């Protein structure tokens, strides 16, 4: 088990390296943009050229990547904070510390000041959604898969397909048109301040619903398929022919086995949720992490994009780790090694 954790930890770090390099390569592919984006569209070309040189953007990609890495690990000072540049970028934490993601050119503030509050808002949104998706999907998936082909199964399955066919922005439009425009029951935007007269909890309802609808539809179908498969297994027949009542057969013998396959999928949903969050936050103007990534990408705020990607990846990979461990707990035939 200890060896397993070490192995997984090493692979996590390796993946983060590879991924951050990938992102770096894509975003800094044409480095002249970096200086231009930092200074904004109204800066003179000569100013851009000076910055280009001072930041060492003429260096090869690998060198620039190592420099960025050095800043992140606290081995190097952030070049953008160099007062000689005259940019007035200042991080109260100093220009050289571990976890220095650099300076956001979009928000004109240190990345660490920008990113964590937004992450918290998104975590609340995704957390509530996840807490609803799991029990709902399990309940409906088990109910549907328990008796394959029954009326309940067909109904749940069709709803599942429909739910997965409605992308978040479309369900957002439908829900807003109905609950906001027609009925006026809920707010159409979720800025997370009560200035507009809507309490914060009411601003959460629609974004959460949008996320739950799309992801739960998918997970329900996975659980249903797995459950239906398990119900056809010989050991379920054994349990039935022992004389066990149906309820015991399902609860004691079927559900745990039916969880094994979708378990990984459920945790991969966190990955899905992160994607869904970007769109949902756009729809409802929710001040979160997803919208920040979008804005950063559109603006070309490399430091922010890198930081956001690394955080998103870490979350995704950690959930994979949790899912592997959980998988082994559910399935006694798997030993972690």
């Amino acid at each position: 088990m200890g060896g397993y954790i070490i192995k997984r930890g090493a692979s996590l770090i390796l993946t983060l390296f590879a991924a951050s390099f990938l992102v770096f390569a894509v975003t800094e592919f044409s480095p002249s943009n970096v200086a231009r984006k930092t200074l904004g569209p109204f800066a003179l070309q000569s100013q851009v050229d000076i910055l280009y040189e001072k930041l060492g953007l003429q260096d090869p990609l690998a060198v620039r990547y190592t420099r960025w890495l050095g800043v992140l690990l606290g081995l190097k000072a952030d070049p953008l904070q160099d007062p000689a540049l005259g940019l007035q970028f200042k991080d109260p934490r100093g220009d050289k510390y571990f976890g220095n993601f650099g300076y956001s050119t979009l928000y004109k503030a240190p990345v660490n000041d920008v990113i964590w509050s937004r992450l918290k808002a998104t975590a609340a949104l995704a957390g509530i959604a996840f807490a609803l998706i799991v029990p709902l999907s399990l309940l409906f998936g088990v109910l549907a898969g328990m008796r394959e082909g029954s009326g309940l199964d067909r109904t749940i399955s069709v709803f599942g397909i429909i739910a997965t066919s409605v992308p978040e922005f479309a369900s957002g439009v439908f829900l807003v048109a109905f609950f906001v425009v027609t009925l006026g029951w809920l707010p159409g935007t979720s800025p997370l301040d009560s200035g507009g007269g809507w309490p914060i909890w009411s601003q959460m309802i629609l974004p959460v619903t949008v996320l739950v609808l799309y992801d739960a539809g998918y997970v329900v179908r996975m659980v249903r398929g797995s459950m239906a498969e398990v119900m056809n297994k010989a050991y379920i027949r054994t349990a039935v022919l022992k004389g066990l009542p149906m309820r015991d057969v399902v609860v004691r013998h079927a559900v745990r086995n039916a969880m094994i396959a979708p378990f990984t999928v459920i945790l991969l949903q966190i990955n899905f949720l992160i994607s869904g969050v970007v769109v949902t936050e756009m729809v409802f103007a929710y001040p979160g992490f997803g919208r920040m990534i979008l804005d950063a990408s559109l603006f070309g705020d490399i430091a922010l994009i890198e930081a956001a990607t690394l955080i998103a990846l870490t979350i995704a990979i950690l959930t994979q780790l949790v899912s592997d461990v959980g998988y082994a707990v559910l399935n006694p035939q798997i030993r972690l090694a």
Partner: protein
Amino acid sequence: MSAPPAPDGLLVLDHVKVEYVSSVGAVTAIPDLSITIRAGESYGLVGESGCGKSTLLMAIMGYLGPTGRIANGRIVFDGADVSAADPASLARIRGRGCSIVYQDPNAALNPTLTIGKQLIEVPMLHEGVDAKTARAKARQILTDVHLPDPDAVLDRYPHQLSGGQKQRVVIAMALLANPKLLLLDEPTTGLDVTVEAAVLDLVNELREKYGTTLLYISHNLGVIAKVCDRVGVMYLGDLVEEAPVHELFANPRHPYTRRLLACVPRLDTDKHTTTFLPIPGQPPSLAGRPRGCSFGPRCAGFDAPRCGVAPIPEEPAGPGHGVRCVRWRELDQFEKTDAEHVAPATPGVEQVMRSADLSKVYDLGNAFMGFGSSRQLIANEDLSFQANKGEILAIVGESGSGKSTFARILAGLQDASAGKLMVLGDDLSRMPAHKRTLEQLAAVQMVFQNPDATLNPSHTAGFSIGRALKKFGIAQSRKDLDARVKELFGMVRLSPHLARQRPGRLSGGQKQRVAIARAFAGDPKLLVADEPVSALDVSVQAAIVNLLLQIQARNGATIVFISHDLALVRHLADRVVVMYLGRVMEMGPVSSIFSPPYHPYTEALLAAVPVPDPTVKQKHLRLEGEPPSPINVPLGCRFAARCPRKLGPVCDETPPPEQAAPDGHMIACHIPVAVLARVTPIFQRVQTPAGAANPS
């Protein structure tokens, strides 16, 4: 059969009709079947795949699934009508009244629950006892089924037990609630022969101890002969014959039963004296059930006005002997007792294949980052034997013996680790297929075990034969190819138009015939047959074996025949190699293997073979324990740990000498051949019971 329900009938099936309903309509699986099983008896139901025997079991348990239903008749168990029972009374009958032992113990146990959890819920449910009492009961029953260390077994998961142990757990689970009737659905299929014998012993022992009534379902006539008092034969959902076990084997009255018995290899005949008598054609689908006698279309004595009009009534053919055949009295007139005998190939002196100290070792890798000792799996060690032209060399052994590994090295699917493997003068030991020349490849071809995997489901049956012909340069043009494929299909007695069918539309036997045709496309000198008939029904197996012998008689190829079935090997082999844990225990001409002196392992194997003849009694000899893992092999004799005749430490420490016995017979054992020769033969014929004497 249709006798009125006897007062002592524990289970009475009264004109039962079972249907499966689908969107296209109802299909009858069992048209009209009546059986009465008396308390305390052991009733065997025998039939080939698709005959409806498992459907019948599930009907008795009231578990036909959403599409199945009992359309007519009654199933009365212990006075209660199962076919009309409500869920509550059905739950009482299941487990408590009648429980079931399944075919595949791997699938029958829940992989995520410990054995203990799965066992204790039975007494907790049916007797209302608490968990502690239930655990004590479970522990007791595990002791009764002779599982060592029952406490440890209770805490294990199914995957931590061997196949034989799992089947004992399933039997224990079935017996936990003290059922009156125990249904056994092919409980030993898939187990090794020594494990099978031990499980059958256990069934017999428990039956005496608890007085349980048995309904035993099997396709294996040898197993039925071992455990049953009365036997029913099923064909296409009909019970075609029913008789006491001795009577049925001595005087089969139905043409199907007689043919079935004529397809079973016996230990007292071989290819020189007997040819199997297969059943022509194949069973129709359930939807295509013929009018009148269900066996009619395949019967030599089919007489349309008498057999092909109305359902065939049951006729008494002796005490307790019923038969559904209107012509049973004329059976000897239309039913041959022996097929036209085809002389088998005569082995030549020219050596085709010789292995010398051939070994195969798998490196299982290091424990962790190079620490700890690396583990090795020794699949084959020092194999030295040969096969001559036109000879059939059989390699027998149980799972893990390494016989298939040898077959794969010989065919070129793997390479050996050490030693030589001479085939027609070339050393092929380290020449996997991609290194062999096309001539070498064509000369050694293989027929595989699983008919469902031998042909690519996406391509037609003729496709791979055509590719082989092209690759081996035998035919190139479309016309030549078609002609050759047609010829090869004729050789394996398949209609040429099947060449354009996909394997999904072929039966198991047909697929295996295509596989044989493919192997013979390049006119091989050596055919490696890895259990080619073990997945087939006995009547299909007989036809394929006949076919192989006929083809060999014509082209004189050498056949290396891998098998676990000693009776079949007795029938077709010229020489036999017995393997255990990767090593040769004994080898010699076939007759020398089946009579003393025996290697102690061969002796135990022979004692375990289910013999399809209740008048033959075998010496009782069982092996203790499980075959050890091939990863940590003993230093001395591989068999020492389980050998009933172990001499002492010498067996554990020193590899046994290869002792020569007469006729080129070799036994690898520390016990001198002269001592090994002083044993009674395994098989002895006993007096036929008076009740089963031939009345005619």
